[in-house]
């Protein structure tokens, strides 16, 4: 039985990494949002599975948050925002797909190396999960630094945070998981609202981060 638990959890975690790669691959914002929705779905599934095998009912809450909030609300919101800002055609890569992919590979390898040095005593489930979670976190960060405009950065940040939730849920019996995921959802909401703020107050004609940087310090 344990074998099955392990394999499914492993599978889900792995596929989360895979989806992160897909995100990295996208350069159109709509597509990116769709992939992110998928990312959230997979997360929800893996959290639910964890809730099941750890029979920790409170994790279902986290799973639902992931499902409803991240897989549906946020993508829709961002979608509408893109429409409003009319930036849906933008290709906003800093580095091309190829290098980004290579970097991603490197990061995954790195996270494996770092995590697999953990002694066997820590149970394998947690260990594998952690390795994948770390990979997802790093990929999310990579996403943030390789994308130019705020929306895709938000997406990058959210997938990073998905990695965290994955790790948190993988950590058997960790308290405050739900609170933390809620807190993070609030954080993300803040970010999205922030972007809206900038839009609504018509301070910036675009949410391109470089435009914000025109007002960087020292009044050049």
């Amino acid at each position, binding site marked *: 039985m344990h074998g099955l638990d392990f394999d499914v959890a492993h599978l889900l975690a792995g596929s989360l990494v895979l989806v992160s790669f897909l995100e990295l691959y996208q350069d159109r914002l709509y597509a990116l949002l769709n992939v992110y929705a998928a990312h959230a779905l997979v997360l929800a599934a893996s959290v639910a599975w964890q809730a099941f095998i750890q029979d920790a009912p409170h994790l279902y809450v986290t799973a639902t948050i992931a499902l409803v909030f991240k897989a549906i609300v946020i993508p829709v919101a961002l979608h509408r925002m893109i429409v409003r800002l009319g930036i849906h055609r933008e290709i906003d890569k800093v580095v091309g797909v190829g290098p980004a992919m290579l970097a991603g590979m490197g990061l995954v390898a790195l996270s494996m190396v*770092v*995590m697999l*040095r*953990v*002694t066997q*005593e*820590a*149970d394998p489930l*947690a260990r594998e999960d*952690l390795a994948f*979670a*770390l990979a997802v*976190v790093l990929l999310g*960060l990579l996403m*943030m630094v390789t994308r130019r405009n705020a929306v895709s*950065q938000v997406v990058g*940040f959210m997938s*990073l*945070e998905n*990695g*965290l939730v994955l*790790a*948190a849920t993988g*950590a*058997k*019996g*960790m*308290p*405050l998981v739900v*609170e*933390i995921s809620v*807190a*993070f959802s609030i*954080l993300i909401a*803040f*970010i999205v609202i*922030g972007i809206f*703020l*900038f839009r609504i*107050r018509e*301070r910036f004609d675009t949410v391109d981060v470089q435009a*914000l*940087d*025109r*007002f*960087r*310090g*020292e*009044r050049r």
Partner: protein
Amino acid sequence: MTFDGLAINALPGVLAVPVVAAALLAALPNYRASARLNVLATTLTLICALSLLFGKPQPSSYLLVDDLNGTFIVLTTFVGFTTSIFSASYIGHELEIGRLTPVAVRFYHAMYQVLMFAMNLALVANNIGLMWVAIELATLTTVLMVGIYRTHEALEAAWKYFILGSVGIALALFGTILVYMAARPVVGEGLDAMVWSVLVTRASAFDPALLDVAFVFLLLGYGTKVGLAPLHAWLPDAHAEGPTPISAVLSGLLLNVALYALLRFKMLLAANAAAIAPGPLMVTLGLLSLVFAAFMLYRRRDLKRLFAYSSIEHMGIITFAFGMGGPIANFAGLLHMTMHSLTKSAIFFAVGHVAQVKGTQRIADMGGLTETHPLLGWGLILGVVAIAGLPPLGIFMSEFLVVSSTFARAPLLAIVLVFGILVGVAGLFLRLNSIAFGEPRGPAAGTQASYVPMFSHLALVLVAGIYMPPALVVWFQNVAGLLG
């Protein structure tokens, strides 16, 4: 007995007073009343905090008071108190010239208390998860306050702070989770595996590899809040664009709180022989920040950004000191941290008034301050002299201890340290000369400044530079011992 009773009531007080005050302030429309209430609240918090000194409550699984965070709590509440006094006059002026709307002021006061609560919570938290939550809360509050002026620069600074801060938060959380993972096999599942006082006793048995990774993430996560280079980017702009009281609180307190979190985990790692030594990492980042910030001082054209970079510099020194470890260096680190909080907030008090009377933060537009506003000018000079580590003020003693104790142990590090300090001093005075001396520039109108907070801080720093009460010394030495 009575003391213990007092303390037991005091601990919730430290947390409850700000919450209540925040609620009231959010409801209170009148500016003067809310300013007074703000001061009152911080006063009460300070009293509670002081009463904690007389007896420490037993650590619960959520809250803990020991010598280490005792230092921080008293410092935080005190600076919070003086800053609220300064803020009263400062915000009053902002309201007059219409830079702030009454609504914004209301929001500001409420947020001020929330920030106080968050920082106190982060300090007394015994649960690493709770600590994380508190620091996140503190960050978000300050983000909102930095953006309060709604100018391009302010919003941009807030946004930058927000994004970088959030990433930091995420990294810190990952680190926290990893710590839990490391603790779980030893301590067992559930809450205990996140209770710091439990962790530190059992840390020797934890999995070193996990702890290592955890510390890396915590160092980066909380290091972002400490403002260590190269994670510092948010700090100068946030200081420069937000209202000055917040700059004072940021430099004087929030950085310390983040550093405090870092220290807690350092102790955790120190307790585990097999894990990597946290010292070298902190020493490297510390020196990097010091030298980097020192060089950044030279090209500054904005007064508040100048001192923001000097905060980075000093955080570098403090991190370096704690990274070196050992009784003298740790003592010096604590002393330096305390002195820096007091001095830097005093400087920001002065800077706030200077910016108000000159109507600008551009260094190029101000000059001859000692002619036009002697009190402000000499106050600023005294502050800079203190922050530059010149005697007879407190930072001189801490720098004396850090450098002299380091040089015998690691000469090369000491050389770099001294180099950074020297470059920093040169940079600071280069700017100070043009601000405080020379032909007066900019408006010379008087100001209804409140000098009490500034000079009381400076007086404390002066006294500490010459004489430290034995009780305080013993206390600091205990803490230094705790830090190992």
